[in-house]
C-alpha cells in the first residue's frame, strides 16, 4: 500500500464533502417545495459540488506532503482550512447571488437570515467542526488507506 500516497490522500479528503452533498441537496429540494420563493439550487450547488471536495482532497494531499517536513496534527491542519475555504465560498456565494449581505445580517439561500454576531460565533464552531471531522473521520480514513 505504499503506492500513490497522494492519490489515496486525495480520495480520503474528498470523502466527507461527497457524503455531505446529498444531504444538503435533499434539504434544499425539500426547502424548495415548501418555500414561498424559489431557491436557486443549481447556483447553491456549485461550491459544495465543484469546489469543496477538491479543496478537501488537496488539503489532505498537502498534509501528507508536509508530513515529511513538519509534524502538524491532522486536526489542527484541518482546522486551518476554514480560513481559506470560507472566504472563498462566501465570495463565490455573493457572486452567484446565494447570499445577500445586509446591514445587520446575512441571508443565505434567500431564506435563512443570520445576524453577524451569530456568524462570528458560528465561525468558531465551524473551526471546531473542522477540527473534529479532520482529526477523527479523515484520520480514520487515512489510516484505513494506509496513509497515516
Amino acid at each position, binding site marked *: 500500500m505504499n503506492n500513490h500516497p497522494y492519490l489515496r490522500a486525495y480520495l480520503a479528503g474528498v470523502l466527507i464533502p461527497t457524503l455531505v452533498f446529498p444531504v*444538503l441537496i435533499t434539504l434544499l429540494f425539500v426547502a424548495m417545495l415548501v418555500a414561498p420563493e424559489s431557491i436557486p439550487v443549481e447556483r447553491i450547488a456549485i461550491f459544495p459540488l465543484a469546489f469543496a471536495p477538491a479543496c478537501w482532497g488537496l488539503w489532505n494531499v498537502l498534509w501528507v506532503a508536509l508530513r515529511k517536513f513538519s509534524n502538524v496534527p491532522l486536526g489542527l491542519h484541518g482546522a486551518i482550512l476554514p480560513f481559506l475555504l470560507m472566504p472563498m465560498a462566501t465570495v463565490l456565494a455573493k457572486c452567484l447571488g446565494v447570499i445577500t449581505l445586509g446591514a445587520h445580517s446575512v441571508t443565505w439561500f434567500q431564506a435563512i437570515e443570520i445576524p453577524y454576531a451569530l456568524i462570528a460565533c458560528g465561525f468558531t464552531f465551524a473551526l471546531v467542526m473542522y477540527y473534529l471531522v479532520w482529526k477523527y473521520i479523515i484520520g480514520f480514513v487515512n489510516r484505513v488507506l494506509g496513509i497515516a
Partner: protein
Amino acid sequence: MNADDENRIKQLLKQTLPPVERNAEPERDLWPAVLRRLDADTAQRHTVPWFDWALLGGLAVFVISFPATIPVFLYYL
C-alpha cells in the same frame, strides 16, 4: 569471477551464517506479545480526550440552539 572465487565465497558464507536447525522455534511464545501490541494500538486509537468531547458537546448545543445554521454548516463542509 571464476569457479575458485565462487567456491571461496560459498565457504565464507557457510562459515559466517550458522545453519538453520530443522523445526527451529523461538525461545518463547511471541503471539501474546503481538496481541498485547494490537490491543494497545486499538485502545490508543479509540481514546477520545475529554476536551474533544467538550468541543463536540459545545458544537451540538450551538446547532440545537440555532438550527437555522445547519444548512449553512453543510454548505461550507
